[in-house]
């Protein structure tokens, strides 16, 4: 029953996404036929659903297929939102009003992203992650902005790298809508640290391309800030 419920839920989610093209709808139905294996795996993931409002310091499985990728994004947005909430609640020493306002905006954007994924994933959302910010000195502008830069650049590279793993074009556009906002954040934070470094050669290569990273590369970097163990082994490769 659990598996069937999860399957219905998936159909509802897909239906909620704007779909105008007949060909796309047909494609989705094919995906339904060929995605039988993935659906069973999703059903298994859905068993965690009752915990979705709680925080866990154990292990979470992101799941597989597009849902796995959305959970991966949800995990990163949880991390970013938690960071900026803390930054806004206890601003660093001598913060300027302009920086306070920028950081409050970014906090709200990250909360919007986090809550969007939570709402879109519904019962298939992973639980809340337990963060570990012990390496950050929240009283220090340098420490906070360096961490913000690391998170934003990481987020950009994560979405850039995840695009190719997404099969539903609507999810791809959604990821695209978010990644450019993360890139706007990254550029601003970099300019706050040092004017003119918004897209320097530490992130942009000789072809003018930004970085893209695989989920395992991203999660290895993020692990410093997350207590919960994230199992990404079922994500598409």
């Amino acid at each position: 029953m659990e598996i069937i419920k999860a399957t219905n839920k998936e159909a509802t989610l897909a239906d909620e996404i704007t779909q105008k093209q007949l060909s796309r709808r047909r494609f989705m139905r094919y995906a339904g036929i060929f995605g039988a294996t993935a659906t069973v795996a999703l059903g298994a993931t859905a068993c965690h659903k009752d915990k979705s409002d709680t925080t866990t310091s154990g292990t979470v499985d992101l799941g597989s297929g597009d849902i796995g990728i959305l959970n991966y994004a949800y995990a990163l947005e949880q991390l970013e939102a938690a960071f900026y909430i803390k930054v806004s609640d206890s601003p660093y020493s001598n913060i300027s009003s302009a920086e306070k306002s920028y950081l409050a905006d970014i906090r709200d954007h990250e909360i919007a992203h986090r809550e969007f994924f939570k709402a879109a994933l519904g019962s298939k959302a992973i639980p809340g992650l337990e963060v570990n910010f012990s390496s950050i000195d929240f009283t220090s502008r340098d420490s906070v902005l360096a961490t913000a830069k690391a998170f934003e650049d990481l987020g950009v590279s994560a979405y850039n790298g995840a695009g190719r793993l997404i099969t539903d074009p609507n999810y791809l556009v959604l990821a695209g809508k978010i990644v450019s906002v993360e890139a706007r954040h990254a550029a601003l934070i970099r300019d706050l640290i040092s004017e003119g470094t918004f897209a320097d050669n530490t992130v942009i290569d000789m072809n003018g391309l930004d970085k893209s990273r695989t989920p395992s590369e991203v999660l290895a970097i993020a692990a410093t800030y997350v207590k919960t163990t994230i199992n990404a082994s079922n994500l598409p490769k």
Partner: protein
Amino acid sequence: MNLLNIFQQIEETDPEVYDRFNDRRDAIKKFSGFAGKVALASIPLALGSMFKSAYGQTTTSVLDVLNFALTLEYLEAEFYTTAVAASGLIPAAQVSSFTTIRDHENEHVAFLKSAITAAGGMPVAKPTFDFTAKGNFNDVFTNYTTFLAVSQAFEDTGVRAYKGQAGNLMSNKDVLTAALDIHSVEARHASHVRKTRQAAGASVKPWITGKDTGGIPPAQAVYDGEDNTMQAGVQITNINGMSISANAASEAFDEPLSKDQVLAIVSPFIS
């Protein structure tokens, strides 16, 4: 794996499936041909490419997208190359930033040209540009304020243009990734230009609030639709009881533009 059974299921889902191939036998033959050549694990991939060709995602459309992107990059590259070379236009403190942007746009041109050639296509020729947009921005290379306004409009258009084409690149994962890697660079540029305008007194932030142009009325088409706060059927304003304003909800998600919308925006800049 029972092949005939799969085809029967497809037939029930889409009765016209065989019109998309030549006929039923052709479809099965094609699939068997694939299956004979590829390892079992990659059968879903083979199926994917079969359906993509039957349902209209072809190499041609990828090349079309790349040439469309190339046209936009030509526009930006020539814009910044001219601006950085215009003496007295850009204040000393910002020359290095706009040189960085100029270089990226020229790198994008070179990258896209080689990608198009590598894919067997022919890069489109660079159009002749009119950066005054037929007299709308006559002092674009002599007045820093005007230059910044056009720069912001180009960068924000670029972000929306790449976003709108991502779905057309799904059949080629490497091209898709490269396009996404360019897309976020354009967004970094946009953020910097907007912050630079903000520092010069414009009412604008690094991100797009509602459909506000930031005091550039002729650029309204660049921002129309950016005030959207519904994503995939989910209302982002005050989502899940959080205190998220409509402004923040619109800022948190950038919106795509179709190719036609982008062409309508840039056509005044093409002689």
